Each structure stands twice: as C-alpha cells, then as structure tokens.
C-alpha cells in the first residue's frame, strides 16, 4: 500500500509569545519550538504502521521554505521512504486553497492508495487542506479519523470522531484521503541513529512554478482568503487572580469553597 502523508512545520504556541509587526500582516514569535504539526505526526504514524503491516512506500510531502526540511528529515527518520518539499515564491501569502492546489499537482504525479494528513494544523486551524486536495483529485475522503481498517478489494473502513464521543463508521473506496485525529495511535520517537540513517534517504525539492499552475492561481492572488491584519485579542479575562505563593493561594481557594458550601 503506497501512502502519501502531507505534513506541515508549525510553531508550537503553548509557550510562545506573539507580537504583530508594524505592517499588521506579520507576526513576531518569541520562544516557540518548531516541529511537525501534532495531527500530522499521528497521520505519519498511521501510514508507517500500515506500511509495516502491508508493505508499500510512504512519501512525506510539505510545502514551504528550506526550514521545513527538518520536519521532512524527521519523517524520514521515523520510517518514511521518500520526502518532497515544494518550494517557491508563489507560496507567499497563500491560504489553504493555494496550498491544496500545489499539493494536488505534486501528489498527482505519485502513485498512491491513500493520502493521510492531520485533521487540522495547530497554527491556523483551517481543517481544510486535506479535503480540498481530495476534492481536487476527485477521490473520496473522510475527516477526523480515529480508527482505520483495510478491508481489501479496494475498500477501507474508518471511524470518524463526532461531537460528544459518538463515532461514525464509514467505508471508502481507495484511493482515498483521510484526515487524522489525534489519539488514533501513539506516535513513535526518533532515535539519533534513525536521524543519521535518514540523512541518506531521498529528499526532493520541486518548485511550485514547475507544477503547471498559473501565476494567478498561486500566492495571495490565487487565494480565497486575504489577510487584512493580525491583532492580539484584548484580554477579556474574567478570572480574579489569586496571588501566590502556593500555600496562600490554596488557603484562599479553601475559603472560597467553604463560603460556597463545597467542602464537607
């Protein structure tokens, strides 16, 4: 089973601080670690497990500059066979729609039974690129996949995670695209040895302009969405802050709970 996995390098925001620059269109990010988007990591793991069970090839693909190659190297180190980076100025200002057009053209040239990607990216949370790629390639897709089973005869069965813990079971004809939800598996860690071995694996760079897309289909002009400006949301903090140290804070919490009759 040949599988293409679409991955994205993201700034992990949990510990990061953000500022908007003078133009209002760029962010200054402080204290962020960059890594593979968490959802994509689960998608990669699922692809690797399928390959280990059924044979075939796993290709990781991303759209972005040089700096994104560290994420592809990581995919190779974990067990992907090949990696592709699509580069180009045409991507500047691109939204999910443009990224999907670029991925579609690049993936179209590969052989695949499945395309896996994360259900969303942690930075822009569009939850969109995968479905668009599938629609453009005219193949069936399912989103928010929590379980995947190969039925044979060109069909797969997946569980989709719906609201409230309910799961929807759907069967799809391959080739198909799935967007993977976190928790579907336990992604492996990479060893230093793995990274070293992976340095010999092929990482191909393609220019977006070479994929046969017209200029007006790329960049900001090819996008559905144009950024007007970023802003840091006003703190609408409702919480009354209880000052430390911890023992004093704990005392205050106990008082509040007592007042409300929550301690028996």
């Amino acid at each position, binding site marked *: 089973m040949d599988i293409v996995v679409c991955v994205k390098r993201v700034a992990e925001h949990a510990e990061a601080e953000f500022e908007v620059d003078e133009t209002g269109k760029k962010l200054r990010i402080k204290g962020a670690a960059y890594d593979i988007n968490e959802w994509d990591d689960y998608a990669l793991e699922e692809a690797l497990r399928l390959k280990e069970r059924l044979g075939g090839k796993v290709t990781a693909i991303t759209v972005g500059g040089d700096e994104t190659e560290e994420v592809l190297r990581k995919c190779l180190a974990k067990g992907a066979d090949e990696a592709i980076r699509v580069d180009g100025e045409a991507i500047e200002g691109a939204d999910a729609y443009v990224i999907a057009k670029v991925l579609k053209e690049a993936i179209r040239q590969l052989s695949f039974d499945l395309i896996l990607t994360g259900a969303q990216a942690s930075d822009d949370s569009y939850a969109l690129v995968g479905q668009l790629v599938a629609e453009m390639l005219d193949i069936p897709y399912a989103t928010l996949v929590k379980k995947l089973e190969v039925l044979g005869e060109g069909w797969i069965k997946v569980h989709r995670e719906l609201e409230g813990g309910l799961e929807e079971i759907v069967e799809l*004809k391959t080739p198909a695209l799935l967007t993977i939800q976190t928790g579907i598996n336990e992604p492996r860690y990479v060893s230093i040895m793995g990274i070293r071995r992976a340095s010999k694996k092929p990482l191909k760079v393609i220019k977006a302009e070479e994929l046969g897309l017209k200029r007006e289909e790329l960049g900001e002009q090819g996008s559905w969405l144009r950024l007007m400006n970023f802003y840091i949301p006003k703190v609408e903090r409702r919480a009354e802050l209880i000052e430390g140290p911890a023992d004093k*804070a704990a005392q205050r919490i106990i008082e509040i709970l007592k007042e409300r009759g929550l301690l028996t």
Partner: protein
Amino acid sequence: MRTEALVIAEHRLGALRDITYELLNLPRQLPDVSATLCALLGFNIDDLAKELANYADEVLYLNSEHLKYFNSEAYNEALTNLIKERKPRLVVLGHTSMGMELAPSLAVKLNMPLATDCLDVKSIEGRLKVARQFYGGKVMADMVLREAEGYIVTLRPGAIGPAKPRQTPGKITKVDIALSEPKAKRTVGYIEPPPTEVDITRSNIIVSVGRGIKDAKNIPTVEELAKMMGGVLACSRPIVDKGWLPKDRQVGSSGKTVKPKLYLALGISGAFQHIMGMKDSELIIAVNKDPNAPIFNVAHYGIVDDLFKVVEALKEQLRKLKV
C-alpha cells in the same frame, strides 16, 4: 442583487443540534441579507422541518432515503444541486464534524471561496470579512474573501448565540431530488460511547488535568486531591490521546459536557473545544503557568503558578481541615 443566505441545518439521531440555531442567527447579523433559507436533508423528518420554519424564511426540505444517514457523498450531491439552483449569496455551515466534510467539497465544486472556523462574519461593500483565530487564540486575524458571486463560511460552535424564534413561521418547501446511490462512500452506522465506569457529568466537583500534568506518573497525586475534595478526576483531550486516562473522563466538544458546582482546571490551557465542555460550570478555578492561557478568560478565579505546588498546598490545607 441576490441576497439570500442558505443555512445547512445539522441534526443527528432525530434531533437538531445546537449549532443549527447559531447558524440561523448569523444571517440576521448581516444587514444586506434579505432572506434566510435553511436546507434540511434527511429522511422523514417533517417535525424538524416544522421546527426550523420558526427560524427561517424558507425551509428547503430535501427528503430522501439516501439522506437518512449522513453521507458526505450524497449530501454533497444534493447540496451542490440545491445551491446551483437557488444561488444564495452566502452558505453557512458549522465548523463541526459535518461542516468539515461538506464545505470544502462544495467550495471546489461550486467555485465559491470558503472561510472555515470563523468567529465573526461581516459584510463590507459587498465583500465578506471574517474574524478567525490563529495559534489557539493567542492571535486574531481579520480576513477578506476573494470577490465572488457567492461565499461559504463555517462558523465555530459557540461563537455567536442562538437565533430567537420568528413571530410567524416561514414556509416549508419540499425539494424534489433524484439522488444516486453513493459509489465511493458507504455509511455503516454509529457507535455510542460505551457506558462508563465513572459518570463525571454527575459529580458536583470535578478536578480536571491537562497537558501541564506532563507525565502519566503525575496522575495519581491529582486523583488523590480529587478524592479528598469529594470529587472526580477529569481531563482535557491530550491526556486521553496519550492514553493516560480513559475517554469517559474527557471534557470538551468531543467528550463530555459538564456543569459541576466546582471545576478545578489544572494545567489546562483552554482550547475552545475544552471550554465548550465546561464553561457553564458554577465555579471555575484555573491553575496555569501561562498568564495568557485562554482558560483564564472563562475561569472565575485564576492562579498563575506551577500546578503541582498548588495541588500539594491544597492537600495540606484539606488535611488540616480533617484534623
């Protein structure tokens, strides 16, 4: 100029979902929308059509056996035909497990620009402007959609309030559709979450942990606190993803919705999916190292500190009380 908005109703297992009422409220906030249409797809759900007529000018009721269960292939085919015929200026769906399956496909097929996960939608000089979050809500952006004859947006659940009923119900139009059997996608059915050992929704006191717990081995110390307080232990999504606690302990839009007397959130940053599941708790106290964590926007009291220090200090206080 065509100025109709088309809302795609969501229902599951015989009931309309809350998001539907929120979607129906959106067109009312856009002054240049003259009429709200609401598409209802399903099989023999006349009662839902009647209910929706209380909120829309016209309910377009697509009744077919092929639409009995949600199947994105069938739904997409039906909606593509409907939108081609009615040509609404704006199509509104939820940023939900259903909207995610439908909106991208419709956007490509109908060549309509799409903005997903919107918190707000405004129309300015015929263009559509949306507000979206980036980086888990640490950054916001105003974005404008490329000029087109029609647009699609998906609205984040809980972003706007539900619509109020109209004074007089709108009309219900049965739309005849000939649908083919889906070829590449078969809906098998649904699985309900298995009955749970501990029903956290029944507890008055919930102590909930998030990513800040760092390691599975730190769970017992917080569970002990929960017990001392007479409550139960719950958690946010990453804890279940990592397999540190079972799914029935998860609070949030894909887990349980809880309304306890006390919700003590420890090391939970407050992603909107989590907030959706606990925001109506009577008292929310949050402990987080990051003073900018969105959890402090919904908490009544906040402590910016290491959760383990606070847990130990609370236990100490509770022990004193017992003596």
